[in-house]
């Protein structure tokens, strides 16, 4: 796994604790018999968390408490209560330096430095724990303060800072392109920043990733998010829809067995039909149904049976259904039967149901 270029703050060790907390009596978890042969790691764990319990009981939000929380999250990065307490310590320490972490106003270098250091800490722990909810949320809480604390919005200076965070997320995605937390974090920062430059740059980013792995469903979902500018419920213009539909079809042409581009294509067409029940949408659907038919040759040339490519056939069924005339529905019904009986038998019940519904609509359609 590649390493991110980091300069995280050093974390104290268990041996530093008695010296740091000479006045504190650690609180043990239970009164049970002491372990005879504790594993080294768990012995560290026990000591560190015994001190933490004592500090939590006192609610001491201090520099040394901050250091203790770093050791404790290193030992268990998923311990959400420790992360909470760490943020409370950060808040208290900043307040004591004469500022208030939640107020608007002039950037305070020492405040920002403190938050940036914490991002470094989170990143250093994130490497081994890429799917840890608490670490990702800690990043978000810190960035909320660094980037979105004041009412000024994202200015050019903070735009670069956003790009820095996007680079970090890209790094994480480089290790696992489907990391759900990373994508969610990326969407949050893009949408909250809401800068044209960023929306536009994301298109290129997405296209690069689709080229690397066209079967990465997360990237296709991201493209939908970007093309709609995070406005989930609004429809694209007809022109934009045509561009997106073509992009999806091109992706499907590379590998018709890939589920994601077909979903995307049908999603675009359905969205247009919902918002525009007009002749131009009908032309759009007709156009792409024809293009889908043409993809059969891609499979034939590769020596594969085009009738067995269930993702392509099911997309065609959807498009024929959108066309809505009797002949199209009859054909769709026939294709559904083929899937249920021959090519996608694990979902037989679904396809035979679909066949029946389409056939019955065909008799009532024009």
């Amino acid at each position, binding site marked *: 796994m590649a390493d991110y270029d980091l300069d995280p703050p050093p974390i104290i060790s268990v041996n530093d604790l008695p010296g740091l907390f000479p006045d504190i009596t650690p609180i043990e978890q239970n009164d*049970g018999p002491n372990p005879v042969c504790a594993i080294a790691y768990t012995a560290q764990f*026990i000591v560190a968390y015994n001190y933490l319990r004592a500090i939590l009981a006192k609610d001491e939000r201090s520099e040394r408490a901050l250091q203790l929380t770093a050791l404790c999250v290193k030992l268990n990065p998923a311990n959400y209560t420790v992360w909470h307490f760490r943020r409370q310590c950060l808040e208290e320490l900043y307040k004591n330096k004469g500022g208030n972490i939640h107020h608007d106003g002039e950037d305070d270098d020492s405040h920002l430095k403190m938050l940036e250091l914490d991002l470094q800490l989170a990143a250093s722990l994130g490497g081994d724990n890429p799917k840890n909810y608490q670490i990702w949320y800690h990043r978000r809480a810190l960035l909320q303060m660094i980037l979105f604390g004041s009412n000024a919005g994202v200015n050019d200076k903070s735009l670069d800072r956003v790009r820095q965070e996007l680079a970090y997320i890209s790094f994480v995605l480089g290790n696992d392109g489907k990391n759900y937390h990373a994508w969610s974090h990326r969407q949050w920062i893009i949408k909250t920043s809401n800068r044209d430059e960023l929306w536009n740059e994301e298109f290129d980013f997405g296209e690069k990733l689709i080229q690397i792995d066209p079967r990465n469903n*997360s990237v296709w979902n991201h493209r939908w998010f970007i093309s709609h500018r995070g406005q989930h419920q609004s429809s694209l213009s007809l022109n934009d829809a045509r561009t997106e539909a073509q992009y999806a079809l091109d992706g499907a042409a590379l590998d018709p067995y890939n589920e994601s581009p077909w979903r995307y294509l049908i999603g675009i067409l359905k969205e247009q039909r919902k918002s525009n029940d007009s002749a131009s949408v009908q032309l759009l659907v007709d156009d792409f149904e024809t293009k889908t038919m043409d993809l059969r040759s891609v499979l034939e040339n590769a020596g594969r049976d085009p009738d067995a490519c269930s993702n392509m056939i099911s997309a065609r069924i959807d498009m024929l259904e959108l066309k809505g005339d009797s002949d199209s529905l009859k054909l769709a019904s026939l294709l559904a039967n083929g899937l249920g009986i021959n090519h996608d038998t694990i979902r037989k019940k679904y396809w035979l149901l679909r066949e029946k519904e389409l056939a019955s609509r065909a008799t009532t359609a024009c």
Partner: protein
Amino acid sequence: QNLKSATNSFFIHVTYLQLKTMTKTSLETTCSSPSIAVLDGEPPFYDKLHTDYIVSLASKLDAPTSYEGAVTEHLRMSGVYWSLTAMSILLPVEKVDMLMGVTSQINDSGRPAILDWLFKCFDTRTGGFGGNVGHDGHLLYTLSALQILALFDRLDDNRLDKEAITKFVASLQQPDGSFAGDGWGEIDTRFTYCALSSLSLLGKLDQIDVDSAARYIIKCRNLDGGFGCVIGAESHAGQVFCCIGALAIAKSLHLLDEDNQSNADLLGWWLAERQCDSGGLNGRPEKQADVCYSWWILSALNILGRVSWISKDKLAGFILKCQDDDDGGIADRPEDMADVFHTFFGIAGLSLLGHLHSSEKKIYRSIDPVYALPTDTVQRLNLQGQIIWRTDEQLDERLSHYDVLS
């Protein structure tokens, strides 16, 4: 003459029964572990191995030397819920209580009774339950705690501060209808499910804006008919369960097709598409099958009335192959190491599939897809909810107490 032939028939019948019983008994004693056969050609279901696994894991995790115990202590409340509910499907409540030390301490174990420990996890500052003693209150662990109490019919324990918990949950609803997990503000559709289920268990759903919660869920629907953690997030089977479960509790499943698009069909198909050749289910396109999705997807399909859209036998076969036939427990996929999370969801999945049939020797309880608790618990508490019934399917008897949307 008639009496003689009748008597003969009777003896033949009795002999047949004896033979059947004998064969069954010998099967049970010659197998390396008591088990039941579920499907031809598949491994048997090693029920006793799994209950033994859960019991020994519980004491292992609480040992001070346990590394696994240390790094999971913050979510112990959920771990206990998974353990107890899995056991409760397979064994009578009294047996589970005795084996796991629920209402009273297990002798000489040094561990408190689970219910006593549970109340120590209540965080008076927030009004919610934490994952373990000394942890901040959070919706995830508040739900798990309430589920455990429901399981053992202790929701009327006078230590349960229903008012404080209700206030905590209600305070987490945002202006857009979504829910944060705690005061720190992380938003996720998982938390909507936790909030609705928690308040339903307490009988206090009227303390939040249920309609607004349901409408936020609908806003999270994606181009493929699925749902993610927030608006715009990728569809994910675990999130789908939370969203559909929330809509079921909110009796708002009709919102799925409000725009005259057959979104329930689209979602049902998306869920069915998660079934891989192995019979297992994945959570998103092009990801690996994982036993936990047997629960998330199966329960969602149950609520949507579309379970027949997947191959139930193939799924059951996959789950059975994920069992550890030496030490018990179920793993995420065949040959991997078992853990209590996947053990619970594997057992729950098999139960929901209808593959765990009770017999004279073994009484299994069925599990409810909306609340992830035994059906009889849900019915005893008269928990409210809604399911979809497609007229071309048989209405599931186990869901007959819910409102039906057809």
